């Protein structure tokens, strides 16, 4: 899940206009809202925040895996990883386009990312330290993202829903490639197995954090769920993720780093430890292990590329002027 703590802009029951009520009825009937149709300002703003945060997460999310492209251990792994990270850039592109239909440009959103006004998923502020992290990121991080994105294919906003459908197809390939790397590592040499376990140890709790704070502390969920911008509660998705992932870890012969992990027959799911929420809020505040590097890399790419973008615009203008002159 790439959107965390997205502030929702709802109104109180008393403030609702007839348009607001009719809009909600459309959503309740399962209709899709399209760009040019009327929508409450709060719906539009909340969506911009959420889609923008999601888009930013895709492009910042290129960096932890991009960190290993030049060190991938075989030609095939290099191709797969490169293709995967390139897909993330493509996802960013779909999502910025979806946000543009709400009246905000890509440049405006990027400016907000660079200034720190808009966030990206906390998970990308963690480092990728060994090759096994390429496996664990695909398996756990993309796995967690899919948990959230599959239901979002049914979200009420048409362009977002369609972007999600395309993204989900690719994400499931990403998760499988991650798991394939983990399989290789877990059945490989003792060092590879150690690497795999170490990656799971480091990335387990940050992955659980991806779903956002516990429902009891999640203040913006109710309105977003009514608008079908958010489809499931944070705890619901986190539980689903744990239930799906624990047997996969067992299959790999790896140990989930949680002494309290236990199957609960009664609820039909695992009991598990909460992640350290203080750490989560620290990471969001900018104090994660890689916040400065990640945002710094994005800002540098943007600033270093300014002359390139200016030149492309200047050339396009000259070319158009020459075409007019030639007529």
């Amino acid at each position, binding site marked *: 899940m790439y959107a965390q703590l997205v502030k929702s802009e709802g109104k109180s029951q008393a403030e609702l206009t007839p348009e607001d009520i009719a809009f909600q009825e459309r959503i309740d009937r399962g209709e899709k809202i399209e760009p040019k149709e009327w929508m409450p300002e709060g719906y539009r703003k909340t969506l911009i925040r959420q889609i923008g945060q999601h888009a930013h997460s895709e492009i910042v999310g290129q*960096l932890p895996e991009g960190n290993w*492209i030049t060190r991938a251990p075989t*030609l095939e792994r290099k191709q797969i990883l490169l*293709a995967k990270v390139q897909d993330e*850039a493509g996802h960013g592109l779909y999502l910025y386009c979806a946000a543009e239909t709400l009246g905000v440009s890509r440049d405006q959103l990027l400016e907000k990312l660079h200034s720190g006004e808009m966030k990206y998923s906390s998970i990308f502020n963690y480092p990728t330290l060994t090759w096994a992290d390429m496996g664990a990121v695909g398996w756990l991080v993309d796995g967690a993202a899919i948990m959230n994105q599959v239901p979002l294919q049914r979200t009420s906003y048409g362009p977002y829903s369609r972007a999600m459908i395309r993204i989900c197809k690719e994400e499931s390939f990403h998760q499988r490639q991650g798991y394939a790397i983990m399989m290789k590592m877990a059945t*490989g040499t003792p060092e*590879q197995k150690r690497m795999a376990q170490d990656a799971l140890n480091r990335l387990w709790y940050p992955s659980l954090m991806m779903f956002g704070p516990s429902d009891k502390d999640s203040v913006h969920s109710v309105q977003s769920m009514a608008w079908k911008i958010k489809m499931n509660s944070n705890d619901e998705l986190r539980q689903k993720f744990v239930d799906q992932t624990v047997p996969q870890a067992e299959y790999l012969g790896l140990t989930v780093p949680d002494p309290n992990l236990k199957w609960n027959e009664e609820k039909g799911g695992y009991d598990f430890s909460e992640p350290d929420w203080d750490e989560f809020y620290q990471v969001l505040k900018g104090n994660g292990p890689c916040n400065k590097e990640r945002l710094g890399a994005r800002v540098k790419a943007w600033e270093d590329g300014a002359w*390139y973008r200016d030149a492309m615009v200047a050339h396009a203008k000259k070319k158009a002027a020459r075409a007019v002159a030639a007529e």
Partner: protein
Amino acid sequence: MPSLPDMMTPDAEGLARQAGQGGAHAPAADADQDAFVEFLLRMGDNALILGHRNSEWCGHGPVLEEDIAMSNIALDLIGQTALWLGLAGEVEGKGRSADDLAYLRDAWDFRNLLLVERPNGDFGATLMRQFLFDAFHFLQLRALTGSADPRVAEIAQKALKEVSYHLERSAEQVIALGDGTAESHARMQAALDDQWGYAQEMFASDATDVTMAAAGIAPDPASLRKPWDDTVDAVLAQATLKRPESSFAHKGGKQGTHTEHLGYILAEMQFLQRAYPGASW
């Protein structure tokens, strides 16, 4: 304290002569096969090292669309690497796979052009390097589609489709950036001047090239000079860039004498294979 023998004594010369005569003369067929392997390594190593350099941009491009396009080119080149090095291993006949060749040779055994191992510089310099190489690569592959060796022709056919697009794109970008703003023009001219001497190695034929041309396997690179000049001149004119006058060529990559940069590329690229020998990934 023992002293080193004086290299200028007649004795030393005699020793050197003897050493030279020590090896048995290889039959001509073997010489052809060695040249063939050399040629295939050159093809594979150019694709590998340039693909590697391009992949360094992934996540750091100036605009999302270009980030994606640059990764695409890197992907094509790494894909071509697997084909060329795979065939090199097969022809060599020592059981080495494409991965063995990519990950377990040291710099002196690499046969790529110096141009492709040059550091990326800014995005414009990367595109200029790409264009100078694409213009050559395209001509080379086009000729290779008529190779006397069907395996070479087949790989060339596939690669040519990809490289036609690479050339179209890098030419467009060089034109746009040369023509764009005063700053972009200055950057592109500097990139061209900087890389020109390295580009000249592409046409420096050696014994391997002559052998390959005689066997009908590959074109003599010197023969690609004229059409390359035509392409480059046309694009530079549209880009309003000035073709450097110097004809000096930095050479050595094709024979294994590289710049200092290649060692660092390999140190990074080969790290896992070197640190965990024999592991499967």
